[in-house]
């Protein structure tokens, strides 16, 4: 998983590109990586452009990461959410929890001002 820190919005925003599949077998890897990213910044953007499949355990990691970012006065925004991931998030009502953006640039820009959208 690629991770970089962007400062164009005036705050440190960590941008991670999620893998193609997040399921019970791979979610532990994402969870561990997210712990490391959170040490660098509480403002995260998950680029989901390559994400083709996510199951409930993967969704659990996303929600858990979101909760941790909020606890640290940050946020987790999702960008380029595909149709399959979107369907699962609508089904489980998880979509309401996240701010979702069409691309990573707009997700980063949304951190400008530091207000959770």
């Amino acid at each position: 998983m690629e991770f970089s820190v962007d400062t164009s919005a005036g705050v440190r925003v960590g941008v991670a590109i999620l893998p193609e599949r997040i399921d019970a077998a791979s979610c532990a890897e994402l969870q561990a990586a997210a712990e490391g990213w959170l040490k660098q910044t509480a403002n995260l953007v998950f680029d989901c452009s390559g994400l083709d499949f996510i199951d409930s355990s993967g969704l659990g990691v996303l929600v858990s990461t979101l909760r941790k970012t909020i606890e640290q006065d940050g946020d987790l925004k999702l960008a380029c959410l595909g149709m399959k991931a979107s369907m699962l998030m609508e089904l489980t009502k998880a979509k309401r929890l996240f701010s979702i953006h069409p691309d990573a640039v707009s997700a980063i820009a949304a951190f400008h001002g530091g207000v959770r959208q």
Partner: protein
Amino acid sequence: MNTGSVQTLIVLREEEHAWLQDLFRSRHPMLVTLCNKPFIEYLIDFAILSGSEALRIASDSPITDLENYCGNGSRWGITIDYAHILPEDDQERLLEKNRQFCSRGKTMLIEKTLFVAYDKKNDYRLWLRACPEGVAVSGTSGSITILGNKQENAIPGPIPGPSLPMLLTIGEYYRLADDTLKNADRYILPGYSSEPDCFLGRNVVIQKGAEIRKPVMIGNNVQISAGSIIGPGAIIGSNIIIDRESVVSGSILMDNTFIGEQLEVKGRIADGSLLIDPESGATLQMEDPHLMSVIQPGASTKQIIRRLIHALAALALLIVLALPFLVLRPLLGLRRNWHTKKRLFPPGATAKKLTIEQVVIRPEGADGRLAIALSIDRYPSLFKVLGGKLRLIGHRPAVSSDTTTISSGCIAMNPAVFGYAETEEWPENERDELMVDHYHLLHSGSLNDIGLLLKALLNKKHM
């Protein structure tokens, strides 16, 4: 010619509605439900409303499930029979093959059609009488042609006829279901309805705190848990469980679907573990059974007995053939005469699929010929009979080609180690084999299966 009688000839071609079959777990397209009623029943309804006394279903592929469902038509008070056609048969050839059936009087030929939008309040006998010979209704999705209507006293004036809505995509299916539910008074729909826009099936349990909003249709054997909200615009099939605090609105739940707790199904079609967005056609195959899954309908006693007999016979074969297998298998491997081929069953299936490993033994040398004669190539598959995944005898896909033509879900859902076709010597091609398989799938019972198995084992074709 008896000009008084009316009959309907429904022509089904496998390729026409393949998209529907692929999407809905390899069910025959005519058995896919629209508002909890299989498509075939809408055609039967319309045939009856038009005054038909006999109905024939002519298909270019095996339609075992459809035949089992419709039977001889006594449920509807109409005579139903079946005919086989070839995929290349044109209308002329088709009518030639069914000349005797069509010569009884007027014939309504329904082609490429899944659904006829009718209004039960209309008298379609008058419409049929007024229709001149030729194509009476046509649309992108099919046509209705009237044959043998040469009566001089055709009734003048406009008489409302049926229409054939476009039905080529899942989006159109979704919109048609919604439209049918909203215009439910036009159709003969299943379920009890004490008030408009609300249909309830048998054995529906709605727990305290659950809310039902019209328009809504609920099938048989449905459990709706506390705190759930169903509707508006929900079509709930049969054998469904909706767990607590879930919302289902503007959606279709196909039969045998479990919806987990606190979920929100809005504007979707759910079929077992498959979630479909009708607008984009996107599908999501759920891997979390606690979210959505297939409810397996219980097997009947007859099926359980049949499965048990097949398993016992497979066990006997495993014991008898154990020694020959242990001796011949390494020999064949060394001589590179043992080859395996993995096949998806039914071919092209995306859901409810079964991977079958078939063995091909080259008939070279004494060991190869002996192994074939003893059916050693089937030995590894026998274990799947014990697990209930395969029948011992049933339909066996040909190993000769990758591009098998078998894709009709009804027959393909009975995969087996030995094929009924192997009991006969005459089948020359896959089509012949399908005919034999089809016959025995309809007529064979548990004990007949054992006799046929012995015949298949002894058939010199395999020696």
